[in-house]
């Protein structure tokens, strides 16, 4: 299966950089991850969950630490379990409405990061784990690509069947409720989905910038979109273009791919922001 895909890529991409298998894998990874993040990001921004996704990214450190303590070779599953638990905790405390959302997330996030660092740095071994901070897109394997494909299908299905409901809940809770939607169910479904996708992608993107990858395409798209179709479409498109150009740029200037992609996205945001200001001035 992979051989066939590689052969096809050799025909389609007769470039020097595309000869390497790690670049082919990274490219396939980008093809899967960028539309995924572009899609999810639109709802993350709608629901003002930027800080939440940041906390998720940071908390992955604790997940890794727990995996190390338990002697797992692959910390993905302990990371996944921890971030799902954390998500449930945050949503539960948030719905109790005893403190404001950003305070709650701040507390959870700080504790999770601190716990992770304490465990991982025990006896001075933290440097082994710095790869998780910035991620390594070039180390993506065919097995990882398989997992990402599954995630991609999962999100796409959710976006086909549950988008309208999610859209209404994020637009106005009372309106959604009067339409018979359960706010709690949709909130849990969506936050857990974000947690799964963020955790899956953390090894490639890194805990420090993963939330930017989620937020920036949607935020940039928001500057220029006039309706939901454009919003989601532009977001996917921008994520894709930035992913591709960021990967290539990082190859040529030998920088971390994840961070390079985020920088390109940041530039996209600035450009669209200026376009928005210009169009408001013209409109006024």
């Amino acid at each position, binding site marked *: 299966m992979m051989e066939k895909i590689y052969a096809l890529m050799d025909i389609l991409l007769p470039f020097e950089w595309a000869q390497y298998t790690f670049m082919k894998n990274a490219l396939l990874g980008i093809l899967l991850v960028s539309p995924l993040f572009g899609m999810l990001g639109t709802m993350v921004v709608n629901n003002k969950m930027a800080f939440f996704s940041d906390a998720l990214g940071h908390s992955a450190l604790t997940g890794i630490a727990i995996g190390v303590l338990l002697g797992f070779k692959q910390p993905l599953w302990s990371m996944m379990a921890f971030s799902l638990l954390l998500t449930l905790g945050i949503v539960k405390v948030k719905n109790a409405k005893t403190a404001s959302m950003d305070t709650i997330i701040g507390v959870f996030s700080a504790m999770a990061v601190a716990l992770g660092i304490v465990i991982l740095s025990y006896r001075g071994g933290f440097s082994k784990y710095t790869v998780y901070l910035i991620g390594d897109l070039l180390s993506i394997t065919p097995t990882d690509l398989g997992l990402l494909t599954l995630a991609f299908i999962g999100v796409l299905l959710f976006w086909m069947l549950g988008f309208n409901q999610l859209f209404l809940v994020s637009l106005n809770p009372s309106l959604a409720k*009067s339409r018979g939607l359960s706010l709690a169910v949709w909130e849990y479904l969506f936050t857990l989905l974000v947690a799964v996708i963020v955790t899956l992608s953390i090894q490639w993107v890194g805990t420090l910038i993963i939330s930017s990858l989620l937020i920036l395409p949607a935020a940039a798209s928001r500057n220029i979109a006039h309706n939901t179709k454009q919003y989601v479409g532009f977001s996917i498109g921008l994520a894709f273009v930035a992913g591709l150009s960021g990967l290539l740029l990082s190859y040529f200037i030998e920088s971390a791919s994840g961070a390079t992609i985020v920088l390109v996205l940041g530039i996209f945001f600035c450009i669209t922001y200026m376009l928005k200001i210009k169009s408001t001035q013209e409109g006024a």
Partner: protein
Amino acid sequence: MEKPTCGHCFTQIRNMSVKKGKNSILKNINWDIHCGELVAVIGVNGAGKSTLLKALLGEVPYQGEIAFQNTNKIGMHPPIMGYVPQKLEFDLSSPVSVLDIFAATQSKRPVWLGVSRKMREQIKESLRRVEAEYLMDRRIGVLSGGELQRVLLALALEPMPNILLLDEPVAGMDANGLKLFYETVSHIREKYDLAIVLVSHDLELVAHYADQMIVIHQGQLIAKGKPKEVFKKPKVEAIFKQSFSKAGGAKG
């Protein structure tokens, strides 16, 4: 689909109570809402009006019963509620068009894949009811207060509800927008078989448009009937003394 007001179907509310912690916010509300009526719910701030509305919408848990009785069906079922919120709070920069909101409530097709031509026509028809079809492709962030309320009204009528709940829908609207909104509401009441429940602070407005009203005070329903009669009750008069003199002054 469109039928004249029958006046026989009604929604029955029995012993409705809402508690928050140890505090009773609503105590034993008994109330029948008949189709074709425009009932105003009035009361001072904190009387429990909003809680009553939220209980009707199922947003807060309550004790007691709400059931809808149709003319030709013996069985009772929960009424279909249409809701026009006081103010739809959203980010002004939201890339959401009027069409998006309608499509999300009425279409199975996810909005991000666009709206079918047939659905577009149907939505245009809904908006025509409130004279707002020209707003269909606008972003909700650029609508005026009055325009947004009419759009929300059209949305609440899809599907046609048994009870249309209006939560102080005129807050922040100019005089023209207000008049247009209530003319539209009156028109809808004449044309469709539904009851309208209006929560309002504006007693003058209530006196003008409502044909029934209830007064909520300290979580209890203390008076119901025609506005003119209710306003005359000493208990009610005492509560609204200040507002009354204001309304009277405005009238001349």
